[in-house]
């Protein structure tokens, strides 16, 4: 009787030995058979320098996420569809990375060819293996001990070009870091943090320059948008968001109030390569709630600026909230979309604004096309045909307090909205809240907050509603909404798998059907989702990543 062989038959074991040898060889770089590196489990991800062409064609490599909002149109849309409506219910955690700082994360990772760059509070960045969550290197920025900060002690993300990363720091610097090792390449001082300037937003690479904004609207700064040469870190141009004496628009600030007018630029803008225009949102005029000391429209606060990226010249502007007295910064993500309006293809800018109105603008000229509330608002009857608000009397802050919707934090805020070219819908995390606004006298002192009042939330927060709202660019109508409790300050991602992802204040992260808002999946991550999701692919597997609390989680399908 012949003994049956146990285990692996001889022919198969020879084949296995060959595969193992092949894998080992390709890991050592000796074999470059096509496909072998990608398919072999032993091959490592490799970082290829990010050229300008790659940034311009970011949509063509959906497995990567090359900038804060995914692409220059800032649509925060992933072209991956491996995760979709059929299988989203099966999502499971793949790996988690616990940020070294316990501050609540606001960051969006950037992924280049399997390497993930994650920023964390206060101004540090870690390079991770996007497949496993293990670290390549970590950069820690030296910060002064006594920073003046109004708000989050945080960083939202890097920009990348070539083999360099660019990051804002809380002490108002811009740094360039080697993407492979974390070595510092250059460090440019953008402004003096002692006067209340700071930086938190992800910069934007345009051509040979890094475009970046500034924070400090509560400290009576004079806001600006800057561009720095990627090679040297020298400043290429600065566009002040408040015109100086003699410049058009300066007359919209009474007396000398322009000097401390705020109008910061603390979020990340967008770029249209065909029109060669950079778009950037500006924030509140200062002092926030006392408009009496700065009569006039206060240009260019609460506006979108269309900027020539070579010279920094202003091509056009549109102001959402003239003479704002509610702190309704327009420091939000300008979404660009090429879709139809009035039956014609049009280059649009779509903007669910903090003031609770959803705007559609022509991004070539800044022409106002449409504006409709997408969240509860009690301050304007509507917008006139130029898009200027028709204010309801009695809605300004008062000594005894005036309750108005939206609240200080707005109908929405800095957290990213999303646009899906497949559904042709804008998705935004909206909030129907209110604030009782007060006015107070304040004197400007350099480096101290200069806000002229404040607010209180008049009812228990449980009475207000957050919701993901899907808005049609053609009509401004809310097509569907998905309410969440307690509320949300999370960004939104949409994908080619026809999914929409977002999160809640109590730590839930969920997936919805992008066309209908039907709930497909949710998980409790245990701490507030205060960042926006993104998606990438490594080794043929799609991941969705989200920071919740101070942990970065990734999710994918079961193997």
């Amino acid at each position, binding site marked *: 009787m012949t003994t049956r062989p146990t285990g692996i038959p001889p022919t198969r074991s020879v084949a296995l030995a060959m595969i193992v040898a092949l894998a080992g060889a390709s890991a050592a770089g000796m074999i470059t058979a096509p496909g072998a590196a990608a398919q072999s489990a032993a091959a490592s991800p490799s970082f290829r320098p990010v050229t300008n062409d790659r940034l311009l064609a970011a949509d063509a490599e959906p497995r990567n996420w090359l900038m804060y909002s995914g692409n220059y149109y800032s649509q925060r849309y992933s072209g991956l569809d491996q995760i979709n409506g059929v299988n989203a219910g099966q999502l499971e955690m793949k790996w988690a990375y616990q940020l*070294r*700082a*316990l*501050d*609540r994360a606001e960051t969006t990772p950037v992924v280049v060819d399997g390497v993930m760059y994650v920023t964390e*509070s*206060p*101004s*540090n960045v870690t390079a991770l293996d996007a497949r496993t969550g293990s*670290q*390549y*290197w*970590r*950069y*820690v*920025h*030296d*910060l002064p*001990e*006594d920073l003046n*900060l*109004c*708000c*989050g*002690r945080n960083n939202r993300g890097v920009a990348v070009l070539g083999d360099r990363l660019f990051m804002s720091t809380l002490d108002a610097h811009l*740094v360039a*870091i080697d993407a492979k*090792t*974390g*070595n*510092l390449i250059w*460090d440019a001082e953008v402004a003096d943090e002692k006067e209340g300037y700071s930086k938190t937003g992800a910069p934007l690479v345009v051509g040979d320059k890094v475009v970046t904004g500034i924070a400090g609207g*509560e400290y009576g700064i004079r806001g600006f948008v800057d561009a720095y040469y990627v090679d040297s870190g020298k400043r290429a141009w600065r566009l002040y968001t408040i015109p100086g004496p003699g410049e058009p628009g300066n007359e919209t600030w009474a007396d000398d109030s322009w000097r401390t007018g705020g109008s910061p630029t603390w979020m990340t803008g967008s770029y249209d390569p065909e029109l060669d225009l950079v778009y950037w949102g500006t924030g509140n005029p200062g002092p926030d709630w006392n408009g009496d000391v700065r009569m006039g429209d206060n240009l260019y606060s609460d506006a979108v600026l269309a900027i020539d990226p070579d010279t920094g010249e202003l091509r056009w502007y549109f102001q959402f909230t003239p003479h704002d007295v509610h702190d309704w910064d327009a420091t939000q993500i300008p979404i660009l979309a090429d879709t139809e309006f009035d039956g014609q293809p049009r280059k649009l800018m779509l903007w669910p604004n903090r003031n609770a109105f959803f705007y559609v603008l022509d991004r070539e000229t800044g022409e106002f096309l449409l504006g409709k509330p997408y969240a509860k608002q009690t301050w304007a009857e509507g917008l006139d045909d130029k898009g200027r608000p028709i204010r309801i009397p009695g809605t300004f802050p008062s000594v005894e307090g005036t309750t108005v919707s939206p*609240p*200080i*934090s707005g109908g929405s805020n800095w957290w990213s909205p999303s646009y899906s070219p497949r559904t042709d819908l804008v998705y935004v995390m909206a909030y129907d809240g209110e604030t009782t606004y*007060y006015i*107070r006298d*304040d004197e400007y002192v350099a*480096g*101290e*907050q200069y*806000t002229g*009042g*404040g*607010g*209180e*939330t008049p009812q*228990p*927060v*449980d009475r207000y509603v957050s919701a993901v709202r899907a808005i049609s660019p053609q009509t401004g109508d809310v097509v569907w909404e998905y*309410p*969440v*409790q*307690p509320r949300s300050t999370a960004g939104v991602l949409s994908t080619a798998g026809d999914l929409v992802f977002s999160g*809640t204040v*109590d730590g*839930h992260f*969920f997936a919805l059907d992008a066309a209908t808002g039907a709930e497909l999946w*949710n998980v409790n991550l245990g701490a507030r989702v205060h960042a926006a999701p993104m998606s990438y692919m490594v080794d043929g597997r799609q991941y969705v990543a989200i920071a919740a609390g101070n942990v970065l989680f990734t999710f994918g399908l079961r193997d």
Partner: protein
Amino acid sequence: MSKHQPFAVLTVLSGLFAAAGTGPAVPSVLAQGPDNPYATQQDVESGQRLFARHCSRCHGLNAGGGERGPDISTGEFQHASSDAGLFNVISNGIADTEMRGIYRTRSDQSVWQIVAWLRSLGAGARVAVAGDPAAGGAVYSGKGDCSRCHMIAGAGGRHGPDLTTIGNRRSPEQLRSDLVDPDARVQPQWWRVRATVRDGPVVEGLRMNEGTYSIRILDGADNLWSLAKRDLVASERIEASSMPSYADALTDSEILDLVAFLYNLTGSANGGGAR
């Protein structure tokens, strides 16, 4: 200048560098003494202005809680109980939270003045009360039947606020109002809910916590329930107080005595209980 930390070194020294990883450690200042040396009415008013400038963005202009910071207008604080403790929190912040200290930009006097203003909120300075606390205690256990819903030092019911230290949080005037007009101030943690489970029971009780997908209830029999919202056919929130008004049930002098009894409940102030 940057600190470049190679991976291998990091794993060995990560314990030592844990603080450095989040930026340079901020040295603490401590109050020079236990008592607030700046406690005049003038100081209270200065404190209010300072609070508006430095603190109101997070805690609201009247300290009642804002978009990012909790309500600190009640007179009881989670991270401090004494004036010196408050001084330390305002100066140094609270580690690993968004609460940052202001000691670098403000003098000791300013910090004390903010303390003075915070103390003037909530129950305010202690006052003498008319009314007999002992008689009030008899009303509490007798006619008032208060321990049906309220606990004092572990004895009593679960469906109303724990009263062990209520005298620290509410002034006599506020206590009177709580007794005769309980609907005037019902905080969300005392809202009730009536939930109907599909092909199942109706669960009614305290809304302990509610999220998008589930709700947790303490029912009338003191059972803890977790209900998935997708399993509910109806869910009704009841924001009115479940406490009856005692305006008619008790005489004026009984209310006076009961207020005195409650105002005397100052317990141990280290806040170990639930809120």
